[in-house]
C-alpha cells in the first residue's frame, strides 16, 4: 500500500533568561531543592500580578528572526485555562491569536547538499508549568508539586506538517537544536527538559491509486531525545498503517478525533494517554493583567543586526573561505559553535584549513569523545594546535612527527601539567622530530650509507624497488628528523646518476 507520512513538530524551548518570564525569581534548573525558586507571582498567590520579562521577548524574537519568521509588531498575552496541580493559577499565560513570530522556515542539507525546507507556522512565548512528582514507592503516598520550573519562559515553535519521514524529523530537530545553540538562547538540554518535542503524525494512504485518505492525527508527547523522535515516529507509522488495515478508520469518520499518545523509549512503543485535549475548551481570552507588546521595525532591524552567524551560513562560509567540503564543514559546524570557533582559530594560525579540518574532525574529535570533554575543557587550546600545525605547513615537521608532539602534549596534560606554546619546540627537540632540510648533511649521510650497501644497490638496479628501504633507514638513523620521502628521492637520483 502506497502512503505518505505527514509529520509536524511542536518544540518547547526553555529560554535561558536570568529570571523567570513574569517574576524576578532566578531561572535555573534545580530539581534537588524543590519550591526554593518561587515568589508570590509564580506560586499564583492571591493578589499577585505578572510583569513581562523583556529579555524573554528579546530571545524569542532573536529565535524568530533566525527561523526566518515575521516578527509580529503588536502582540499580546492570553490565558489558556485548565486545571492541573502543576499550574498554580489555573491558567497558563500564553499567546493565542497574535504569536510573537509567524511564518518562517528552517532548512536542513543532506551531505549531498540537497536542501529540505520545513515551514514554521508560529513561535509564541508562554510560561512553563511546575512539575508533579508522584509517589513511585507503591505505597500510595501523596503526589507533590515542585514549582521551581513554573514561570520559566518557553518558546513554543510549531512547524507546518511538511516533514515526510522519521529521519527527516530527527534531522530538522537536530538543525533546530544546533541553531538554538548558536543563538545561545537556550541550554537545549533535552535530558533536563529545556528542549522538548511533540510530533503530530499521520498517514495519507493511497487506497486505490487515485484517491487518498488520511489516518487520524496522533500527537506523540514528550520525545526527549533525538533517538526517541526517530524511533517513536517510525513506530507510529507502522502502528497507524496496521490500524488502518484493520479498521479503515480515517479523518472525517464519526468519532475520529486527534489522539494523544505517550512514548515509552524502553519498551519502544507509543501508548494512548488520557488527553486533556479530550473535552478541553481552553477558553482563551486576553490576559487583563498584562499590556500588549509593540515592536518597531527599527527594533527588529537592530535585533537582526545583532544576530550571530547561523550554522547554515557558517557551513557556506567554510566552503567558500576555507575551501572545505560540505561534509567537513558540516562535521565541524554541527558540533556546535565552540568547536567551530576552535577550528577557525587553528585554521587561521596554521594557514592550512584542510590540515586544520583533518585534525579537528579526527584527532581532536576522537580525544574529546574518549575523554568525554567539551571543546572548552580540551587541554590543547586552539592556539597550541594552530602553532603545532604551522610547523607542518612550513615543512619543519611531518604529520607523523606532529602526531607524536600532540600525543606528548596530551600525556603531559594528563599528568596535570599546564601546556605552554614553548613546549612544542621543546618536544620536537627532545624527540629530534625536526625535518632536516640541510642537503649537505643529507648528501654526506647518503654517500656514507651507499658505501656499505652494494647489494641493495644491485637489487634495486635489478628492479627490486623495496631494496632501497634499508638504505633509507640507514640514512634516517644518521640524520634524525630527515624526511623519508626526501631521502628516498635523493637516493634514487644518486643511484640513477
Amino acid at each position, binding site marked *: 500500500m502506497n502512503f505518505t507520512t505527514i509529520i509536524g513538530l511542536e518544540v518547547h524551548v526553555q529560554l535561558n533568561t536570568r529570571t523567570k518570564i513574569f517574576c524576578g525569581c532566578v531561572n535555573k534548573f534545580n530539581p534537588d531543592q524543590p519550591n526554593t525558586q518561587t515568589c508570590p507571582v509564580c506560586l*499564583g*498567590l*492571591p*493578589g499577585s*500580578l*505578572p510583569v513581562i520579562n523583556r529579555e524573554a521577548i528579546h530571545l524569542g524574537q532573536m529565535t524568530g528572526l533566525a527561523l526566518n519568521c515575521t516578527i509580529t509588531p503588536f502582540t499580546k498575552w492570553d490565558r489558556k485555562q485548565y486545571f492541573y496541580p502543576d499550574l498554580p493559577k*489555573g491558567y497558563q499565560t500564553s499567546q493565542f491569536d497574535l504569536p510573537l513570530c509567524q511564518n518562517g522556515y528552517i532548512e536542513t542539507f543532506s551531505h549531498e547538499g540537497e536542501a529540505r525546507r520545513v515551514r514554521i507556522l508560529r513561535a509564541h512565548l508562554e510560561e512553563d508549568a511546575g512539575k508533579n512528582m508522584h509517589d513511585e514507592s507503591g505505597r500510595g503516598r501523596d503526589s507533590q508539586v515542585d514549582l521551581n520550573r513554573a514561570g520559566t519562559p518557553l518558546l513554543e515553535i510549531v512547524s507546518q506538517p511538511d516533514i515526510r519521514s522519521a529521519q527527516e524529523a530527527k534531522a530538522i530537530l537536530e538543525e533546530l537544536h544546533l541553531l538554538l545553540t548558536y543563538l545561545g538562547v537556550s541550554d537545549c538540554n533535552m535530558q533536563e527538559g529545556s528542549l522538548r518535542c511533540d510530533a503530530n503524525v499521520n498517514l495519507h494512504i493511497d487506497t486505490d491509486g487515485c484517491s487518498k485518505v488520511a489516518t487520524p492525527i496522533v500527537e506523540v508527547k514528550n520525545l526527549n531525545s533525538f533517538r526517541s523522535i526517530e524511533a517513536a515516529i517510525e513506530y507510529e507509522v507502522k502502528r497507524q498503517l496496521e490500524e488502518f488495515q484493520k479498521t479503515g478508520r480515517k479523518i472525517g469518520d464519526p468519532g475520529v478525533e486527534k489522539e494523544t499518545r505517550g512514548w515509552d523509549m524502553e519498551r519502544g512503543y507509543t501508548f494512548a494517554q488520557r488527553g486533556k485535549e479530550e473535552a478541553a475548551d481552553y*477558553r482563551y481570552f486576553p490576559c*487583563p493583567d498584562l499590556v500588549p507588546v509593540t515592536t518597531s521595525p527599527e527594533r527588529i532591524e537592530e535585533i537582526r543586526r545583532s544576530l550571530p552567524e547561523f550554522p547554515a551560513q557558517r557551513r557556506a562560509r567554510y566552503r567558500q573561505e576555507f575551501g572545505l567540503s560540505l561534509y567537513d564543514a558540516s562535521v565541524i559546524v554541527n558540533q556546535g559553535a565552540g568547536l567551530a570557533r576552535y577550528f577557525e582559530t587553528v585554521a587561521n594560525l596554521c594557514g592550512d584549513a584542510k590540515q586544520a579540518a583533518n585534525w579537528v574532525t579526527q584527532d581532536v574529535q576522537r580525544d574529546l569523545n574518549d575523554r568525554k570533554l567539551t571543546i572548552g575543557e580540551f587541554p590543547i587550546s586552539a592556539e597550541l594546535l594552530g602553532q603545532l600545525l604551522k610547523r607542518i605547513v612550513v615543512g619543519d615537521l611531518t604529520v607523523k612527527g606532529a602526531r607524536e608532539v600532540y600525543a606528548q602534549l596530551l600525556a603531559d596534560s594528563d599528568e596535570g601539567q599546564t601546556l605552554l606554546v614553548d613546549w612544542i619546540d621543546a618536544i620536537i627537540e627532545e624527540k629530534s622530530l625536526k625535518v632536516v632540510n640541510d642537503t649537505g648533511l643529507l648528501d654526506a649521510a647518503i654517500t656514507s650509507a651507499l658505501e656499505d650497501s652494494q647489494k641493495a644497490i644491485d637489487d634495486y638496479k635489478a628492479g627490486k624497488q623495496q631494496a632501497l628501504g634499508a638504505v633509507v633507514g640507514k640514512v634516517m638513523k644518521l640524520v634524525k628528523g630527515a624526511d623519508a620521502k626526501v631521502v628516498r628521492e635523493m637516493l634514487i637520483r644518486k643511484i640513477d646518476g
Partner: protein
Amino acid sequence: MPTITRQLHQSLLSGAVTSTALVQRCLNQIAARDGQVKAFLQIDADNALAQAAAIDARRQSGQSAGRFAGLPVGLKDNICVMGATATCGSRILENFISPYDSHVAERLKAEGAVLLGRTNLDEFAMGSSCENSAFAVTRNPWDLERAPGGSSGGSAAAVSAGMLPLSLGSDTGGSIRQPAALCGIVGMKPTYGRVSRYGLVAYASSLDQIGPFAGDVYGAALIMEAIAGHDRRDSTSVNLPVPSYTQTVDQPLAGLKIGVAREHFVEGLDPAVEQSVRAAIEVYRSLGATIIEVSLPRSRYCVAVYYMVASSEASSNLSRFDGVHYGHRSENHGNLAEMYAASRAEGFGDEVKRRIMLGTYALSAGYYDAYYKKALQVRRLIREDFDAAFQSVDLILSPVTPSSAFKIGELTSDPLAMYLQDIYTLSANLAGIPGLSIPCGYSPSGLPIGLQLLGPHFSEDRLLRAARMYESVTDWHSRRPAIAVD
C-alpha cells in the same frame, strides 16, 4: 470620636493626641459597637498598638511620623498584608495568611499609618450588600436592620460607625462608592491604573481599583496622596506624577462646568434621592458652576456589559482557588477532578458560583464572540460616550445609588435587583474613569444619600477639589449615626 480626618490629623501632627491614644479609642469603639455592626473580620489590637507606639516614639525622638502621623486605617480583607488574613469573605481562603504585603499596605506602612484590622466584604468583592460574606453580615450603622452596601461594606461601616477615621476598599463596579453613599461618608474610586493592584485579590482585573473611605474629602485626599503612583509590579499601573491632593483640595475650581446626564434621571430612581441630587446641582450653581446637559446614550448597556466582562475575568481569576497549593481542600474526593470540584463547591458561596458559571459560559468556544468580545466592543463605546461628554464638561454629577440603604435580606432573593444597585456606578469602571461619592442628604427616614462626581481619566485632583467645594458649604458629612457616638 471625631471622624473628621482633618482635625484628627492636625491633632496628631501637633502632638495634641498620640497615635496610641487614638488607636485605643478606635479599639474601644470597636469593642463596644462591632458586636452589632460586624464591620471587622479580624482585629489584632496588640499589633495595632505596637505600630502606634512605634510611630509615637518616632515623633517623640524628633523623627518624622510619616504622612499619616499614626492615623489608623482599616483594610478590606481582599487587600494583602503580610502576616494577616486575606479571606476575601470566602470559606475557600478562611485559613489563608498572606506571606506578602500589597503595594498599598507597603505605602501605608511607610507613611506612618496604623493598619488596624481586616474589614468584611461580599465574597471576593461580588455583591452590593455585604450579605455575601461567608463569615458575617455587616449592618448599616444608620439602621442596623439595613445593609451597608457592598462589596466594601465593612470598610464603609467601620468609618461611618466611628470605629476608624480611614479605610481602604476596592471598587470593581461601585464597591466603594455605593457603600460610601449608603453609610454617609466619602468614598473614591481612582482612575484605572492610578493605584497599583499588586496585592489586591483580583475579582475583575480590568475593572478593579483600590480606593479610600473617609469621613471627609480631606481624608480621601490624604490616602490618595499616599497610595497613588506607579508600581512596576502592576503592568497596568500608570507612570504619571501624583499631585499633592491635600495641598490643593481646598482650592475651589473657577468656571467649573458640570454635566448632568438625562439618562441618570429616569424610572427607578427614588424621589428622595433625585431631590437630594438636584438640590446638590443647585449648590454647585450657587458656587458659580455652569450646569450643562450631556448624554451618555450607552448607559443602558452598562449592567449587561459589566456582568459579561466582570464574570468572564472572575471565572479565570478564581481558577487558582483549587485546593492544591493553599486554601480549602475538600476531604471528600477520590481523584483529582473530584478534589477540584468538591473543594470549590464547598469553598465558594452561591453568588461567586453564579458569576464563575456565567463567565465560564461567556468565554466558551462558540460563545466568546457573541458575549465576551461583543461586551468589549460595547465597553469601548461606553468609554467613547464619556470622552465625548468630557469634551464639553469638567465633571459629570449623578446619583450614586437608585435608593438609600435597603433592608438586609430585601434583595438577596433577586440577584437582578441587586445588580441594579450599581447602575450609576458601573460605567466609571467600564470607562476606567475616577468617581467619588459624597453625602448630599438624607431620606425621610434619616438614611444617607450620596452624590456621585465623575471626571476624565486622572482627574482625581479635580474631583477632590469639586467635592471639597460642596462639602465646605454643606454639613451632611458632619452628621453621624447614633452608634458612632462614644
